[in-house]
């Protein structure tokens, strides 16, 4: 089998005592691209955060396995070291830490001790990747995400993705706030990652991203669950018709998480 496998089984997640995810099932294999769509507030970011280990989210039931290993037992940094990556919907700003220093620390933390990336090799890779993503070279020396525009933050997340080369990535609304040109560049970056090994889950509201990155599978989330799955045609239908037909089909009146089906 090529690459890693991420298995999410019957996942229940609470934030501050409120249950947000109510039994999510999803399996992503290496080489596959999955898209998760769904109206606002239906639990998409919660799913991504729970996989990465966000401190506010508590898993109350279910399991997350990466190649059979229990992800829920791992600290956040261990999850990254195991091969997971999350491009966040709202990346943090880290004052006083340059993008370049941060990335070098990250890369080295993913490598064995004593096998740190040589400085010249790092600089070369960083330069090439920034060129590829048409990022201004000054960004390397700017403080991480501090004062970045929305679009710059997203590009920076993809820069990190390409530099760190994880086995399995979740991209949470990587397309939001991007202009058309930026969308193309970011898509180009994500597509460059595509190979038999790399697995990816793309959370998005819009077909326009999926025009550039064709997913193998498309899932729809409502009320904290995956309520429908299909191929790329499902995303196209959602773009054309919205979510009402699914709600009708499943007898859902209010898709947000406060409700039960």
């Amino acid at each position: 089998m090529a690459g890693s496998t991420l298995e999410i089984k019957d996942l229940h997640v609470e934030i501050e005592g409120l249950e947000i995810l109510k039994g999510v099932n999803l399996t992503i294999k290496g080489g596959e691209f999955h898209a998760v769509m769904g109206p606002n507030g239906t639990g998409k970011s919660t799913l991504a955060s729970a996989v990465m280990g966000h401190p506010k989210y508590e898993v109350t039931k279910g399991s997350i396995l990466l190649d059979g290993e229990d992800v829920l037992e791992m600290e956040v940094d261990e999850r990254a070291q195991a091969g997971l990556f999350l491009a966040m919907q709202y990346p943090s700003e880290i004052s006083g830490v340059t993008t370049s220093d941060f990335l070098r620390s990250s890369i080295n933390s993913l490598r064995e001790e004593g096998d740190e990336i040589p400085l010249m090799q790092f600089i070369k890779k960083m330069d090439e990747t920034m060129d590829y993503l048409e990022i201004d070279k000054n960004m390397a020396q700017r403080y991480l995400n501090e004062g970045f525009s929305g679009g710059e933050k997203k590009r920076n997340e993809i820069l990190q993705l390409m530099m760190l080369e994880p086995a399995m990535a979740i991209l949470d609304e990587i397309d939001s706030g991007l202009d058309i040109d930026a969308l193309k560049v970011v898509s180009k970056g994500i597509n460059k990652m595509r190979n038999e090994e790399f697995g990816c889950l793309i959370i998005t509201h819009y077909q326009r991203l999926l025009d550039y990155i064709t997913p193998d599978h498309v899932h729809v989330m409502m009320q904290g669950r995956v309520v429908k799955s299909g191929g790329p045609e499902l995303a196209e239908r959602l773009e054309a018709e919205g979510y009402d037909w699914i709600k009708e089909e499943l007898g859902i009146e209010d898709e947000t998480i406060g409700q039960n089906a």
Partner: protein
Amino acid sequence: MTVETQLPYDKDYLMQYSERRKEPQWFRDVRLNAIETAENLAMPKLEKTRLKNWNFTNFKHDVSGEAVQKFEELPEKIRVLLGEKSTSENLIIVRNNDVAHASLSPELQDKGVVFKDIFTAMNENEDLVKKYFMQDGVSVDEHKLTARHAALLNSGVFLYVPKNVKVEEPIQIVFWQEDPEAALFNHVLLVADQHSEVTYLENYVSENKNEEAVANIVSEVFALDGANVSYGAVDNFEKGTTTYVNRRGVAQRDATIEWALGQMNDGNTISDNVTYLMGDNSYSYAKAVSVGRGDQKQDFTAKIVHYGKESEGYILQHGVMKDNATSIFNGIGKIEHGATKANAEQESRVLMLDQGSRGDANPILLIDEDDVTAGHAASVGRVDPIQLYYLMSRGISQQEAERLVIHGFLSPVVREIPIETVQAQLREVIEGKVY
């Protein structure tokens, strides 16, 4: 133990000590008066720090130190402080209470620059020392600790830069408390005459992780008309030393005093930094960074007092508190009546890392004049768990993530520090304290 405990040093002891140091009579009198004054004075008044259980009395007062023959003999922690300065020019090393090395380049000597220990200066440059020593800067009778300082002085340096002389290379002094119980009653007297320029850098190092000792330091900096003084300090006393350090500047017309202070002691510390902007168009920028750890308690004050018209004073202090460390950051901008068009700005920020750490920032503006500008910013906060999560989500360990956040938090001050050597030393010391 209480702070009122008597010192085991009396007038007879001081007489003998002074004779051995071959001090002039006037200075002997300063000591004898001061020891009497000290008895009747109270400890310094600190708004929010209680000095209960701080050691101010347990120490050895008179400890000699051997001369340094070769720099290679110096321990690594001293050698790193010297950096490129292995040529040993314009450098004094004080070991315990003795000068172990002293050098001043022939060029600077020819220009009339004086850089020597204070005991020698009392005799050889008596007029200048007498004129400035604890007169217009710090007074002997401010409180018990300033009086004790004058009485027990056992170390010090005098730096004089004559009119119009511009000293290009930084002048450095290292105070190395090699004996773990040796006290340091140290006086720095810096006089920059009219339109002169100098960069001065001092390092304090001790070896007492377990033994108790005391440091009582007073620096007085006089920038006469048009003089520029850049004063850098990295305080790095070990846990056993209780420190009182008072650095004070007096800036005359068109003069500037820049402070770059690394307040990195590991023991309880009172650090006071006050600048009097006496002259019109005088200027001061006080920058300070601190890292507190363990159970240490610290009280930092940065204060600038404006007398001169169009005087400008800026305070920028950032501190990180770890473990159970507690600190108070006072920032005080005071504008006296008549100091029209003065500008007082300050920023104090404290980051707390652990549950047990405490920080407090008190920005104070005291303004007695209408036609001025002033502003302050202060913040005290805990490290943001979401920031750590973000960094860790890229594989960085929690410890490394905290390290990045700490460096990041202090960096706006560190990178603004005008003396490169101090910047480099600070990065080094911060690194050592973060783990």
